[in-house]
């Protein structure tokens, strides 16, 4: 054993090729290789850092030694430790004249530094010098550093040299110069905008490597500005044609494919160039068709090209023939045993589904298999596909599945994503409001801290606004059901903060609305919430405001209010809270309790959260008053600029009019000022600072009368107003007094609306058209899913919906919904039935039973009222799998048969164990690298 170790050491030394690493370095690497734990490794590295720190400080370190130290630094840095103490030595090494050392220096700095590091400035000069060097290897090393280290400010320093190098004699230099320019372009497009023509010229470079590298910057340029590169389509098609015809040197072949990486790059570019362009697309038909024929789908690289073709086809305007080819390629992918190819197949399906909806239909089983696959990646991809296929008829099953999956995972990033998708789908396609609220509850419960706050506001708005119909009954029912569900959930431990906010708001707003629950019951619950989550101020704030609303409603309806003892203690606690926000809320609540019914009613009218309030931002209603004040001797308003000198006047003005300028004007400004730097307390009274900017953004419609009357109507209210504004979180505002609260609410509404519109226009415009026509083909799959997996839940939720509303209630929270959804609902019926027939007949026999069922299912569920035989339907539905399994099996076996043929070849064959490899393996073992036992031949086998 000992002997083996020595041999290993010697071999290891030998493979250095005499690069002069010392024993110390080898020992370091070896000891790290042998370390058994991260802690041990860290210890070794830390002591190494100490040694290096000392050694680097020694005077007159020989250069070769220094080079080794630098490499040791790289090693340390690679292991995740900080080697910044040695950066400067690496920088110094780049100045060296010896190329060997210079190269090491450059390697080290590119690994150590990033473009914003302070030391960069010390390197720029060296780089400049090296770019002018006669030795092309020096130039290459410098260009490598340029690609990593040059930032926006230093681009001009090296740009001229780099441009000169575009015409260098060595192709390696030209290539790197292009990549450097490419990087400059990414960093700062303006710096190289005048050089764009160079890229075009380099496309015709005699060296294919340079041409291939040029495609990288061209891709970026084209993706920024498609129109000005349309003329290149024919050149790209020509190049691709030449590549596929093996016109490039043999050395570019990779696994018998001619220059596949260049092909892929070209396909990416062509997809960009001809997206939505009929004539450009047509130019590509030929070469794409050729690719489908020529690509060897038994190699990975062949499949990579096929996949890129599919992507390309999904972008351009394809011919039917190409679509067919693409569909065939996808089905090959899906039928393969390799998870990689399945993954690509699912992805391709998601892309093609936009163009040709009947593709997914043939692969429903494969899709479901992928959905149930233990491989998480594949599963997620499949969820993405489902997300793209969702429409109102299958939304329940899909969202249910998504939520189940969401609950099961821990990865917060993906959880957030899938939660937002659930919300989006639910908002877009919800069959009923109850269902929507249920889904929202689930999402909040399990991913509450991850979802966007906007979602919570949407939900509150939905509950508040109802559903755009004038059906108050249904709205009330919905609110009641929301309140009931929340009362159930509220006692569960550890709810997410956002969800609690929604709960508190809804309970405050509607908890006592229909008299089912008493005010003391609800307020007790709210106090519990405030107690249980005492560290969360936001929740507490929501709870207190909800309490206030409940008491306000009680007072307004002339009922006697008994404040619960725990509530009283809560208020008292909050009166002394460190949070000014909570404190203020508590004071307000206290003040409100002392008011009479009439006043309270106008502060917090019942169910007024959706009233729009128009704001007079010119304050024109004050004109009369101001006039009056001026007439009675007040100073006129002096703008901020003019005022800078005349501070006294304003103070005068202020003191003079203080009591009369009325509370509202005063308040108004006092709160407005904190943001901009306060010029003076006095001026605060007078609309001053932000004024100019407001005028530059005139948007809000002006209505004098309403605000005037409101302001005049109640003094008290105004006072409270000013106070209440302080805590304005958009959601509360809605509930509080109309005058104060609604501006933000309305604003919030518009913001959501506008962005909802934006989102919808960007997202739904594309899927919308396809969703409608897509109906027939996904349904069978959904049915299978529904029947085999979610028969219970989906049927229950379905009947639920029927009984509750007797049909779809289309309008949803978002403003554009009423327009689109109702339109969608009636359409499916004829659409579906029309579509069913042809697809049913054209489809393979294996899927026929699905079709029929789906027809049944669809017609009954779509004509709305038929709640009676839902259960019956489902029972027939449930028998579906029984009927179909046989055909399923046969299909599957077919699949596996066919795929076995092709894909077994692609599996890597294990070569014979060569002696050399065995030796190496032994070496590896005793060096502590622990290779896998089952494959001692290591790389060679895999590559052989």
């Amino acid at each position, binding site marked *: 054993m000992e002997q083996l170790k020595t041999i290993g050491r010697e071999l290891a030394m030998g493979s250095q090729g005499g690069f002069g690493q010392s024993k110390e370095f080898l020992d370091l690497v070896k000891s790290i290789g042998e370390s058994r734990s991260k802690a041990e490794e860290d210890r070794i590295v830390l002591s190494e850092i100490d040694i290096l720190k000392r050694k680097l400080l020694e005077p007159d370190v020989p250069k070769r030694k220094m080079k080794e130290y630098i490499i040791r630094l790289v090693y340390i840095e690679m292991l995740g430790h900080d080697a910044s103490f040695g950066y400067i030595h690496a920088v110094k090494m780049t100045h060296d004249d010896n190329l060997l050392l210079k190269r090491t220096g450059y390697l080290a700095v590119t690994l150590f530094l990033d473009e914003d590091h302070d030391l960069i400035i010390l390197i720029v000069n060296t780089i400049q010098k090296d770019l002018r060097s006669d030795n092309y290897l020096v130039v290459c090393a410098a260009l490598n550093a340029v690609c990593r280290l040059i930032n926006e400010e230093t681009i001009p320093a090296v740009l001229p040299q780099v441009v000169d190098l575009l015409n260098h004699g060595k192709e390696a230099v030209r290539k790197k110069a292009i990549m450097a320019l490419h990087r400059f372009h990414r960093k700062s497009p303006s710096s190289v905008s005048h050089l764009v023509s160079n890229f075009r010229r380099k496309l015709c470079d005699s060296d294919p490597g340079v041409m291939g*590298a040029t495609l990288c910057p061209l891709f970026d340029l084209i993706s920024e500005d498609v129109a000005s590169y349309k003329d290149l389509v024919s050149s790209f098609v020509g190049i691709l044609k030449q590549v596929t015809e093996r016109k490039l040197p043999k050395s570019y072949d990779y696994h018998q494919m001619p220059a596949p990486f260049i092909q892929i790059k070209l396909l990416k570019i062509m997809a960009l160039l001809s997206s939505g362009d009929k004539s450009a697309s047509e130019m590509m038909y030929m070469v794409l068709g050729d690719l489908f024929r020529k690509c060897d789908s038994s190699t990975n690289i062949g499949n990579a090209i096929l996949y890129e073709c599919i992507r390309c086809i999904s972008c351009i305007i394809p011919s039917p023939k190409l679509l067919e080819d693409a569909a065939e390629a996808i089905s090959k992918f899906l039928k393969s045993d390799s998870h990689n190819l399945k993954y690509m197949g699912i992805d391709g399906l998601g892309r093609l589904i936009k163009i040709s909806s009947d593709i997914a239909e043939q692969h429903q089983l494969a899709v479901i298999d992928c959905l149930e696959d233990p491989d998480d990646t*594949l599963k997620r991809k499949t969820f993405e596909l489902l997300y793209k296929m969702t429409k109102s008829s299958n939304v329940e099953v899909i969202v249910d599945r998504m939520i189940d999956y969401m609950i099961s995972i821990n990865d917060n990033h993906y959880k957030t994503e899938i939660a937002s998708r659930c919300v989006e789908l639910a908002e877009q396609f919800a069959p009923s409001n109850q269902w929507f609220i249920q889904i929202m509850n689930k999402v909040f419960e399990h991913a509450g801290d991850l979802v966007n*706050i906007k979602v919570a506001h949407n939900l509150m708005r939905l509950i508040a606004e109802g559903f755009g119909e004038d059906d108050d009954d249904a709205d009330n029912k919905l609110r009641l059901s929301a309140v009931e569900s929340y009362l159930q959930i509220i006692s569960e431990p550890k709810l997410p903060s956002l969800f609690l906010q929604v709960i508190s708001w809804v309970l405050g707003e509607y908890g006592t609305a229909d008299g089912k629950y008493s005010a003391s019951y609800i307020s007790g619950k709210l106090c519990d919430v405030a107690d249980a989550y005492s560290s969360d101020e936001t929740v507490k704030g929501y709870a207190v405001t909800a309490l206030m609303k409940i008491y306000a409603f009680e007072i307004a309806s002339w009922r006697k209010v008994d404040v619960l003892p725990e509530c009283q203690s809560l208020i008292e606690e909050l009166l002394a809270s460190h949070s000014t926000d909570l404190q203020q809320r508590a004071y307000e609540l206290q003040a409100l309790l002392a008011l009479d019914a009439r006043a309270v009613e106008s502060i917090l009218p019942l169910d007024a959260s959706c009233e729009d309030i128009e704001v007079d931002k010119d304050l024109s209603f004050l004109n009369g008053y101001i006039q009056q004040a001026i007439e009675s001797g007040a100073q006129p308003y002096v703008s901020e600029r003019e005022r800078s000198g005349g501070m006294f006047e304003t103070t005068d003005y202020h003191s003079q009019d203080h009591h009369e300028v009325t509370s509202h004007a005063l308040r108004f400004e006092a709160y407005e000022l904190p943001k901009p730097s306060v010029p003076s307390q006095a001026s605060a009274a007078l609309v001053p600072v932000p004024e100019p900017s407001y005028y530059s953004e005139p948007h809000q419609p002006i209505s004098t009368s309403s605000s005037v009357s409101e302001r005049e109507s109640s003094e008290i209210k105004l006072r409270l107003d000013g106070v209440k504004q302080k805590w304005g979180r958009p959601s509360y505002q809605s509930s509080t007094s109309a005058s104060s609260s609604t501006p933000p609410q309305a604003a919030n509404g518009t913001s959501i609306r506008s962005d909802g519109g934006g989102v919808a226009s960007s997202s739904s415009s594309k899927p919308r058209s396809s969703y409608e026509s897509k109906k027939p083909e996904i349904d069978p799959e959904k049915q299978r899913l529904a029947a085999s997996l979610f028969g219970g839940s989906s049927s229950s939720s379905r009947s639920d919906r029927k009984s509750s509303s007797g049909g779809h209630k289309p309008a949803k929270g978002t403003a554009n919904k009423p327009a689109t959804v109702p339109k969608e609902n009636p359409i499916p019926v004829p659409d579906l039935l029309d579509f069913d027939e042809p697809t049913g007949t054209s489809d393979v026999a294996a899927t026929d039973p699905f079709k029929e069922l789906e027809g049944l299912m669809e017609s009954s569920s779509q004509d709305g009222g038929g709640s009676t035989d839902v259960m019956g339907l489902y029972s027939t539905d449930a028998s579906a799998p029984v009927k179909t399994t046989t055909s399923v099996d046969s299909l599957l076996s077919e699949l596996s048969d066919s795929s076995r043929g092709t894909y077994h070849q692609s599996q890597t064959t294990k070569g014979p164990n060569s002696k050399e490899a065995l030796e190496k393996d032994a070496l590896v073992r005793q060096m502590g690298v622990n290779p896998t036992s089952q494959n001692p031949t290591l*790389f060679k086998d895999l590559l052989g």
Partner: protein
Amino acid sequence: MYFQVQFVASVSAEEFTLLSSCFPRSCTFYLVLCINLFLFFLLAQESWVGVLYFQIHFVLLVSRQGKVRLTKWYSPYTQKERSKVIRELSGVILNRGPKLCNFIEWRGYKVVYKRYASLYFCMCIDEADNELEVLEIIHHYVEILDRYFGSVCELDLIFNFHKAYYILDELLIAGELQESSKKTVARIISAQDQLVEAAKEEASSISNIIAQATK
């Protein structure tokens, strides 16, 4: 693309609520301002969101024991983030079964990995990139390493990690594949090595080195 827009929208909505909660509610001016800003962001965002870059964000070589063998970062990451990324990814990748696909979705990116004997080669790419291609880039790199070291093994990479870096630099630059010909890469690497040999022999004489290289 669409998601980005949505994300921006949500962020600004959050900012918006934040802002609106900081200010008294009657300050509609602020709110109007916010909305305008928000819309502006939305539009501005949409105009450049159309640009999609594909690139490799980092390359990672990890042994089966989770030991780092090589790291190359093309996008900026701090040392802390790097360790976190490595920890996170090696945790996920090393625990994946052999039959599963070679891609994982990770923090909105995709990581393509391939195992060669006891070594995992990982590359992180954008979500919309072609995974199979990247898989082949990995393989391409391994083939070049293999040709260079002559049936490469993990040990070669452990002791000669700097050479693996040099080779990687010839293959990828700024996260893009710069050279797809094995021969070209081999040629330039060997030119550099000759230089090194020369330097070893006549370390003192710079002129000789240049003569060698330009020969």
